[in-house]
């Protein structure tokens, strides 16, 4: 659009600015494109090619529209913490933040001290509005964080090891001494899940309505809370563990074991999807980044490792020093580490997956931190410790803009009821849990096993032999370096390199001779014994 005057056109936005805007938009558009464009060059079917080209164009347009909406239409902006001069962000204390921030936000900073009822663990609903709190000595409570009010508290007079909300604030599960129980918002006990046994950790998979639990004996169970059906019950075989986390990106449950192994499970198979040795000591805590690419594990050998889940290399992306009895990632990617009475927040500000110190908070010595959990859609970190629970402000940790159809902190009861029905209609079957959720709907390429020709096999054997011959064996000292022994060793190495190929050849020959035998069997027998010959099915 331009305004035409005699001869020239005046643009409303000058060209330089336009370039800047388009670069920014490009970055945002990439986020909404969800992957690279499909390559349509190899397609021979013209009709399909045309249809797919139209679809790709539409994807581009919708990503563009979403990028524009994100730039201009979102109501809230995220939090931040900027220091001036020689100040560093990790030196800033909660009291100084409280002075700078408005009254409503400073109400989110508090310490609730309840020393008699044991270490506390906590859980938030997905909208961040309600919090469930469980003390080891049997104290269960639900709180409304918006009004800072207690909805209901009950004393179950038994050990409570973990609390987890189900799909909304109306139901929560508590892992008690012998079995896990499900309670109503009013504190009424609804179900006693006897099959699970003495559960150490509970996790709820939101999209699938599955309650996952790991018990004292290391058994992992998945139960569908809509119909009450036990979907899977598996013996992990790796012993007792109380480190369990759900990867929100793909719904996979990860367990951390005392040998340093991390295993990942899905409800439809009794063998784990993945088992990796991550640490040299037992795993003490685990956390998943919401975008599904990063996993943080903490071992008792005072190391915290960050792994890339897409590539799964042998080495972690980053190793940080320190203990952690609990880890958690926020919606914006900040990592909280709690150990003893200190919480450290790490952030990745350069975008290169390099986590560095951002903020810290020391509690009163003697408070043993049991669990840290970021509150969704708020810049708040909830800490459950041995003397109660606390909450501190971490600017920049929460997602400022919520989507009403995903999680609404200002939900009315009517909206909550509607959402429950819609989420039940969209309940995913347990078979959709897989390591790469984007695989759903793709075409499985059929791999045909190609038989290698004789020449190829020979070439492989020769290559292996050459590689072995090239190796120089180590020269031993203290009189063990006799030439005869060296020659023997070399022969052994060559023979061991040849062995697999020779075995394969032998196997194939055996099969061939067996086939030949079967064919020739019928021919050789005399007529009197023909009735005993195995008859081959007519082709």
């Amino acid at each position, binding site marked *: 659009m331009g305004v035409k005057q005699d001869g020239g056109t005046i643009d409303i936005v000058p060209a330089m600015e336009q370039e800047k805007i388009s670069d920014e938009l490009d970055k945002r558009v990439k*986020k*909404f494109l*969800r992957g690279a464009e499909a390559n349509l060059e190899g397609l021979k079917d013209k009709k399909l090619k045309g249809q797919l080209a139209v679809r790709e164009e539409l994807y581009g347009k919708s990503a563009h529209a*979403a990028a524009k*909406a*994100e730039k201009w*239409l*979102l*109501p*809230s*902006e*995220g*939090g*931040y*913490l*900027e*220091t*001036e001069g020689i*100040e560093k962000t990790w030196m*800033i204390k909660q009291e*100084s*933040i409280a002075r*700078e*921030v408005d009254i*409503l*936000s400073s109400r989110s900073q508090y310490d609730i001290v309840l020393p008699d009822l044991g270490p506390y663990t906590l859980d938030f609903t997905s909208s961040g509005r309600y919090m469930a709190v469980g003390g080891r000595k049997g104290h269960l409570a639900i709180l409304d964080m*918006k009004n800072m009010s207690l909805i209901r508290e009950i004393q179950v007079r038994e050990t409570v090891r973990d609390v987890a909300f189900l799909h909304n604030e109306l139901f929560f599960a508590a892992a008690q001494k012998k079995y896990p129980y499900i309670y109503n918002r009013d504190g009424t006990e609804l179900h006693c899940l006897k099959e699970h046994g003495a559960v150490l950790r509970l996790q709820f998979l939101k*999209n699938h309505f599955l309650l996952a639990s790991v018990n004292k004996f290391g058994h992992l169970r998945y139960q569908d809370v809509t119909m009450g059906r036990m979907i899977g019950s598996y013996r992990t075989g790796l012993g007792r563990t109380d480190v369990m986390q759900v990867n*929100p*990106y*793909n*719904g996979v449950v990860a367990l951390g074991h005392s040998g340093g192994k991390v295993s990942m499970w899905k409800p439809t198979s009794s063998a784990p999807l993945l088992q990796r040795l991550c640490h040299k000591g037992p795993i003490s805590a685990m956390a998943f980044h*919401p*975008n*599904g690419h990063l996993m943080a594990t903490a071992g008792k050998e005072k190391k915290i490792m960050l792994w890339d889940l897409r590539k799964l290399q042998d080495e972690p992306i980053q190793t940080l020093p320190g203990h952690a009895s609990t880890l958690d990632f926020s*919606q914006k990617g900040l990592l909280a580490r709690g150990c003893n009475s200190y919480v450290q927040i790490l952030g990745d500000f350069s975008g290169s997956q390099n986590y560095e110190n951002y903020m810290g908070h020391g509690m009163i010595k003697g408070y043993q931190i049991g669990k840290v959990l970021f509150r969704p*859609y*708020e*810049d708040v970190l909830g800490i459950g410790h041995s003397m109660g629970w606390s909450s501190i*402000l971490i*600017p920049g940790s*929460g*997602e*400022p803009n*919520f*989507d*009403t159809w*995903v999680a609404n902190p*200002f939900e*009315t009861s009517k909206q909550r009821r509607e959402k429950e029905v819609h989420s039940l*209609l*969209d*309940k*995913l*079957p347990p078979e*959709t849990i897989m390591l790469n*959720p*984007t695989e*759903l*709907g793709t075409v499985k390429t059929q791999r045909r096993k190609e038989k290698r020709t004789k020449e190829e096999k020979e070439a492989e054997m020769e290559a292996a032999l050459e590689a072995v011959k090239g190796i120089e064996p180590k020269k031993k000292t203290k009189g063990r370096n006799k030439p005869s022994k060296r020659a023997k060793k070399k022969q052994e190495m060559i023979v061991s390199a040849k062995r697999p190929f020779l075995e394969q050849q032998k196997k194939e020959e055996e099969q061939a001779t067996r086939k030949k035998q079967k064919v020739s069997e019928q021919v050789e027998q005399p007529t009197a014994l023909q009735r005993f010959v195995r008859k081959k099915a007519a082709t």
Partner: protein
Amino acid sequence: MKVKVISRSADEFTKERSQDLQRVFRNFDPSIRTQEKAVEYVRAQNAAKLDKIFARPFVGAMEGHIDSISCMAKNPNHLIGIFSGSMDGEIRLWDLASRRTVGRFPGHKGAVQGLTVSTDGRVLVSCGTDSTVRLWSVPVSNLLKEDASSDKSAQPRETYVWKNAFRSVDHQWNSDRFATGGAGVDIWNHNRSAPEQSYQWGTDTVVSVRFNPGEPHILATSASDRSIALYDLRMGKPTSKFIMRTRTNSICWNPMEPINFTAANEDSNCYSFDCRKFGEATCVHMDHVSAVMDIDYSPTGREFVTGSYDRTIMIFPYNAGHKREIYHTKRMQRVFCVKYSCDGSYVISGSDDTNLRLWKSKASEQLGVLLPREQKKHEYHEAVKNRYKHLPEIKRIVRHRHLPKPIYKAGKQIREQNESQRKKQEKRKAHSAPGSIVEEPLRKRKIIKVE
């Protein structure tokens, strides 16, 4: 030190008064939604199932004729009316909303073979086996009134007698002329009692005649010598002709792409042609098991409906080889004519059992005025279903149709025959020198000669 923390004031995010609407906030960021593809898959499955639950295509039947219905005509100026002519010479005007006869046009002594309405909607032209062409004035007042019980029979405005029986008639799109097909193609004018022009190419009867909606002087005809010919009235001569293996019963031009037309053939297939290239068909539509008797395009030009001798109606997309939908009833016998309603929502079939039947073109469509939210929901369901309709679970639900046993068996037999032919051809190719056996595509195979 500069610090900002997320703080939301409740006034912005909640409603003030109970009459206010709740505000909806959207954030399209993919990272707050997990497992989008799986959720879409489940929604596609539910959408496919709901579609099947709400699929009630049959709206109603219009009875009244006492003999099989041979032809129908739509009035482009009045969407709610449809004319039908039967084998005993009776022509009726029906009101689709009340499904009742609104006017009768008696007069023909034999079967009515062709019906057409002039573009201004005033004149109905009919032709029949009694070698007459009759022009009727369409009563405007009757159309406006809702008087369903009126049995007013009209008198023909004109009756022209000619030398041979007629098989079809079609009106030109921008003038007073119409063409009839009988022994040859005759071009008539409303005011002349004899045709202005007559064309003859070959000695066989012309079975169907259709004017092109885009170029009004181009005419396509099909004859019983298995040919399809194009005539140009400006040049005063027939333009081109090609001969196929079997006879074409009916032709229809695509109203949105007037260079293409589709021919309904006796060999149970429909062939779409580009009128500039007669050497090969652009698409072969195969799903009927018996001769296709009639074809009509939707006003969107995106799909067409066919009626066949195998007692079914099928709706095909304009560029696909197989049907989108099939309609059948125990009471509906051989279907001789079909029409797509002018608003694209209904399909009307006239069959051997003397009834006209009204069907929805989209079987699970909600009729009536939809709220914008309902409309959006339906569109979303369609879109998500189309995205995943190739996956096995959803394909099974979407494709499933109950077919009458004879048609199912006949279809199976045809597929087996085709499959065996294909295998034989493959074996022939495999056992002969590469390149010695050249297989013609199906689109070309059915055309014998182009003149």
